[in-house]
C-alpha cells in the first residue's frame, strides 16, 4: 500500500509550483498596478468626466459604470478584468493539462499502470486544480486587504471574502470545463477550447446582455454575470451563485471521472 496520502494530488500540485508561482506573480502585479491608482484615477472628478464621455454601451461592457467608488473600481478593474483574465487562463491551462494533456503526452498510461484507480486520478488532479485556484484567489484577497487603506478603497472585508469565493469559483468553472473536455476526449486542445469557451462566452454574454432588455436573457447563460452581476466587492456575494459555480464545477469533475473510467486510454 502507498505510504503517502493523495500521491497524485501531491505530484500534480508540487510539480507545478513554478507555474503557480508565475501566475501568483502576475496577479500580484495586476493588483499592485491597479489598486494604488484608485485615489488618482477612479475617485477623481476628471476620470468621472471621462467615463461619462464614453459611450454608455462601452462602460457597461467594461463594468466601468461604478468605477467611482473604491469597491466598484476594484470589482471592475481587478476582479472583473485583468484578474479574471489571468485566473481564467491559469485555470484553463491547468485543467486541460490535468488529464487530457497528460494522456496526449503519453504519461497517463504509465500512471494508470500503477496502483491507482482512474477515478482517483481525476479527483486528485481536480483537487490540485481547485487548491491552486483557491490559493491564487486567497493571495489576491490578502493583497487587496493590504492595499485597502493606503489606496482608500474602503472595501468591507466580508464583501471582499465573498468576492474571492466567486472569483475562485468563476475561474474554477472554466478550469473544470477544460479538465472535463480534456478527460472525455483525451486531447488537450479540446480541453483548452472548452475552458476558453466558458470563460470568453461568459464574459461576452455579460457584456452584450447588459446592453438592452431584449438581450438580457444572455445574462442567465453567463457564469461571469452569475458571479459579478451584483458587484460582490461592493454589495457582498450572491451565495446562491457561488453555490452554482462550485456545484457545476464539481459536476464537471464527476463527469470527467465517469468518462475516463469507461474508456480506453491512449488508444
Amino acid at each position, binding site marked *: 500500500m502507498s505510504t503517502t496520502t493523495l500521491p497524485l494530488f501531491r505530484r500534480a500540485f508540487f510539480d507545478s509550483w*513554478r507555474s503557480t508561482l508565475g501566475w501568483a506573480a502576475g496577479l500580484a502585479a495586476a493588483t499592485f498596478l491597479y489598486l494604488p491608482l484608485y485615489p488618482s484615477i477612479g475617485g477623481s472628478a476628471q476620470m468621472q468626466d471621462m467615463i461619462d464621455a464614453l459611450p454608455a454601451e462601452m462602460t457597461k461592457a467594461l463594468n466601468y459604470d461604478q468605477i467611482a467608488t473604491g469597491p466598484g473600481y476594484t470589482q471592475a478593474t481587478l476582479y472583473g478584468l485583468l484578474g479574471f483574465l489571468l485566473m481564467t487562463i491559469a485555470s484553463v491551462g491547468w485543467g486541460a493539462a490535468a488529464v487530457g494533456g497528460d494522456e496526449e503526452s503519453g504519461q497517463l498510461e*504509465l500512471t494508470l499502470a500503477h496502483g*491507482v484507480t482512474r477515478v482517483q486520478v481525476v479527483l486528485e488532479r481536480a483537487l490540485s486544480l481547485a487548491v491552486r485556484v483557491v490559493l491564487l484567489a486567497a493571495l489576491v484577497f490578502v493583497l487587496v486587504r493590504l492595499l485597502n487603506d493606503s489606496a482608500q478603497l474602503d472595501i468591507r472585508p466580508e464583501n471582499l471574502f465573498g468576492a474571492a469565493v466567486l472569483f475562485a469559483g468563476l475561474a474554477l468553472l472554466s478550469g473544470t470545463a477544460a479538465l472535463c473536455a480534456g478527460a472525455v476526449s483525451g486531447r488537450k486542445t479540446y480541453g483548452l477550447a472548452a475552458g476558453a469557451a466558458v470563460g470568453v462566452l461568459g464574459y461576452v454574454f455579460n457584456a452584450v446582455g447588459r446592453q438592452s432588455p431584449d438581450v438580457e436573457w444572455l445574462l442567465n447563460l453567463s457564469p461571469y454575470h452569475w458571479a459579478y452581476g451584483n458587484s460582490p466587492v461592493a454589495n457582498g456575494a450572491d451565495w446562491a451563485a457561488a453555490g452554482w459555480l462550485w456545484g457545476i464545477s464539481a459536476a464537471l469533475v464527476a463527469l470527467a471521472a465517469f468518462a475516463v473510467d469507461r474508456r480506453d486510454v491512449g488508444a
Partner: protein
Amino acid sequence: MPHAISTRSLTKKFGRREVLHGVDFAVETGSVFGVIGPNGAGKTTTMRCLLDIIRPTSGEVRVLGKDPRAGGPELRRRIGYLPGELFLEGRVTGRKLLAHYQAISGPVAPGRIDALAERLGLDLDRHTRKLSKGNKQKLGLVQAFMHDPELLVLDEPTSGLDPLVQQEFHAMVREAQHKGQTIFLSSHVLSEVQQTADTVAILRDGRIIAVESVSGLREGAVRHLRLSANGISAHDAGALLGAVPGVGLVEVLDSGSTVTLTATLEGDIQPLVRALGTLELKDLVLEEPDLEESVLKMYSSPQEAAK
C-alpha cells in the same frame, strides 16, 4: 501450476478497425515469455489489455489469476510495466519521479532504486526531460523493476539501450526469473528476446501465428554452411551434400583444385557430419542457426507457420 497470464479469444476493436482477432496464449508462472512481431502486429495493444489501460472488446484475460479490470489497483501493484513509448516530460529529477511511482506501486525495498540505477548507469539527479532516450528507458526499467513485482510486462524493453546496458538488462531478467518472477516482454526482432526468453510467441496482424520454445525454434531454424574440400569434383561434392536430409540450396562457389560450396541445413547435424567424414576438408563453417530468418519467414507466410 497456474498461469501468470492467459488470454482466450482476446479481440480488440478501435471503432471499426479490429486490431486483435482472437489472441490466445498462456504464460507460465516463473517463465520468460517473449512476444515478437512486426510493428502494428498488436503487441502493445495486447500488453495494454493486461494492465487495464485498454479494455478488450471480447474474450477473456487473466493476469495473476484475476481479470485486469476487476483486479484494479491491488493487481497492478503486483505488476511492473514498461510502456512501449515512454514519455517523461516533467521538470523533476529521476529520483523524485521514482519516488512518485513508488508511492503508487508495490512496496520498494530500501536502497533498491539506487542499486538498480547504478547497475544501469543512470544518474537519478538529472531532470527527466533532459535525459536521452536511452536514459529515459533506464528510468522506465527502474520503475518497472523496483518493487520486485510478481509479473513484469515490458514493451520493447531494450529499445534505445546501448549493447552493454542491454546485457545488464538481460542479466536483470534472468535474476528476476531466478527469484520466481514472471517476465512478459516484446520486441519486433527475435534476437532481443531469444537470449532471455524460454518461449516465444509470434504475433502477426493481431493473431498469434506460432508459440514455440526458443530451443524448438533453434531446431527448426536454418543454419548456413560453407565448406572447402580437396580431391573431389564440384559435382560429386554437391551430390553428396544434396543427399543429406535437411540440406538445401547447395551452391558451388569455386570449382578449381579446391571445391567451395555453400548450403543450408535444417534439422539434425549428425547426418551431415557423417557425410562430411568422407571428404578431405580444408575448411568448414557451420553457422549459428539463424532464428531471425525462420521467424521472418513466419511473418510473411502464415500457412508455413501453421504447419
